[in-house]
């Protein structure tokens, strides 16, 4: 015996619409491969290039709480904006973000990062300077590496001082592809 997909879907939708989830997630298809996208009642909480739930469920529970459930409706807004972005129809995201439990330095770096415009790049050092810690470019690199919400918080737009791409937690090929999409790379 198994559960009909209709019954399963109805439960997942009800759980989300009753506000009973700490975080709801779904797999969103993109030109860069499957993304695991998760949102809480505060906003978008995570985008992961590793879309295997078995690798991500515990991590999401640590961020937001144990009531983690796959629920497509929880990420409808994020899915729509990501689709538009990948189709080249959107340059800025209007999603609220769940940045809870991050240290103040991380939060201020991410807020500055969010201001780096579509199609442009900046450097780790420049971002460090903008949060008033000009010598902290290495620490900024760590914040980029641990960015829970890549793409929407555009850590792909941060490159080395000589213009080399340096690194990307999702893989350098992803960083290249995102910068090409935005026209920042030929």
């Amino acid at each position: 015996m198994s559960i009909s997909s209709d019954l399963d879907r109805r439960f997942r939708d009800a759980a989300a619409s009753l506000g009973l989830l700490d975080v709801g997630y779904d797999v969103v298809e993109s030109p860069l491969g499957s993304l695991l996208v998760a949102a809480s009642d505060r906003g978008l909480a995570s985008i992961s290039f590793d879309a295997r739930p078995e690798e991500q469920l515990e991590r999401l529970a640590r961020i937001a709480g144990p009531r983690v459930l796959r629920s497509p409706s929880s990420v409808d807004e994020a899915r729509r904006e990501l689709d538009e972005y990948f189709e080249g129809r959107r340059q800025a995201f209007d999603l609220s973000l769940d940045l809870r439990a991050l240290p103040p330095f991380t939060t201020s770096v991410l807020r500055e990062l969010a201001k780096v415009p579509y199609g442009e790049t900046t450097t780790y050092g420049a971002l460090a300077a903008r949060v008033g810690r000009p010598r902290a470019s290495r620490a900024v690199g760590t914040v980029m590496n641990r960015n829970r919400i890549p793409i929407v918080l555009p850590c792909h737009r941060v490159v080395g001082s000589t213009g080399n791409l340096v690194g990307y937690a999702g893989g350098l090929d992803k960083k290249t592809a995102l910068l090409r999409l935005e026209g920042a790379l030929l």
Partner: protein
Amino acid sequence: MMDDVAIPPFERFYEEHRVEVLSLLRRRLGTERAEDAFQETFLRALQAYRRLEHGEHLRAWVLTIAKNVAVDTLRRTRPTAELVEAGAEDTMPEYEELAPLTDGLPRKERAAVVLRYGYDLSYDQIAAALGSSEDAARQAASTGVRRLRGRTTS
């Protein structure tokens, strides 16, 4: 603390127990009524999940909830079952009846209204489900109701 079994993310818990819960409910209620009871069981589990202190005995726990839901369902439907055999749609769970009415409310208020007036939960339980204080739950339900009243009379 280290000896406690960790509480699994709800998705894992749900995947592990859903088949057994549904078959228990089918045995007790029949295929049709088992579906609503299934939803109600896991929604109740979800409401209480945050208050769990460890991840032990979760199977027994969810089967207990399922049995309680089955008892409630039988109690609710038995007196009329023979009279309205064809009208089994009447067993729609309360939250679905309330859903169209509360659609426009902010998320928290909506949940508070539905849990209070649909499920008849106490503010203490609602607070646990919403992850807020009892006062905040009471406040959310009353603001939600006031908002609904405003909407229906204007």
